[in-house]
């Protein structure tokens, strides 16, 4: 696929056990970005405007989800991008990794019903002040697939800013949090999968507005115009 010179260059990180990188890259291409799949041993991401940590079971999810992945070499530059205000998005397991890395507050425990949840859920846009939601409308309801066992978000610090909220809270997440942003809004973790809701034939294309927000993030635009 060819891209305009201005297409956002997005690194899609693969850890051993990641399994959603192709879906993420495909959906990012659909919204006009230029994704590149990169291995977790990589030590710099200088050429990229943004980064996505896709879903899966990084390092087998041994010990705790994301606990080993946070020490992968690529997490150094991911942290630098987060600090520099560049868009950093963790989806599902990627969200868990961002929490373990301390780039987002909180942690994950098993779903309150102890079942692996694999179905479409409805989420409501709770805040548009984030790289994932700035093109959406507050209160807008999106239909996204959820696919996780440890999606039950807990945040004793109460500092996680909810940007998407479950309508029926299927996993017991604190505050119904389906997506959390850091204070600056450039680091976001989302538990359901926007990249799997990228075409109507998949049952929903509601994830597109989120991915368009991500690749059209003002932080990313300013990086590229430099």
């Amino acid at each position, binding site marked *: 696929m060819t891209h305009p010179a201005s297409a956002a260059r997005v690194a899609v990180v693969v850890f051993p056990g990641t399994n959603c990188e192709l879906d993420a890259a495909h959906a990012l291409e659909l919204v006009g970005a230029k994704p590149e799949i990169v291995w977790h041993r990589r030590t710099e991401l200088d050429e990229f405007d943004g980064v996505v940590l896709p879903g899966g079971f990084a390092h087998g999810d041994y010990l705790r989800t994301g606990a080993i992945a946070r020490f992968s070499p690529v997490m150094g530059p991911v942290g630098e991008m987060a600090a520099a205000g560049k868009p950093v998005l963790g989806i599902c397991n990627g969200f868990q990794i961002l*929490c373990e890395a301390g780039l987002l507050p909180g942690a994950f425990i098993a779903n309150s019903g*102890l079942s692996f949840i694999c179905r479409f859920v409805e989420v409501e846009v709770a805040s548009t002040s984030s790289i994932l939601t700035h093109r959406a409308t507050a209160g807008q309801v999106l239909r996204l697939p959820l696919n996780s066992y440890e999606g039950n978000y807990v945040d*004793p610090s109460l500092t996680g800013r909810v940007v998407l909220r479950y309508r029926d809270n299927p996993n017991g997440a604190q505050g119904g949090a389906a997506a959390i942003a850091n204070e600056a809004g450039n680091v976001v973790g989302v538990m359901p999968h926007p990249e799997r809701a990228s075409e109507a034939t998949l049952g929903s294309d509601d994830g597109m507005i989120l991915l368009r927000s991500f690749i059209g993030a003002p932080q990313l635009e300013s990086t590229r115009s430099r």
Partner: protein
Amino acid sequence: MRVKVEIVRRPEIADPQGVTVVRALRELGFGEVAEARFNRTIVLELDGTDPLSARARVEEMCRRLLANPVIEDFDVQVLEK
């Protein structure tokens, strides 16, 4: 030297496994069970013979990797052999 680490989820954080086990025990007639909490135990075999330095090293391991400081505490016990 053998060192035992117990990772304990803080009491204010829910334990969905524990809740489910309590329900199952009650259904089996153990109605007196009020709560069950799952901890994680890790037994480490270390080189060296100084229990004090072993404890310090293992506590550092807990802070860096073995426990999640957001929701867990840890207890380190040097097992004498």
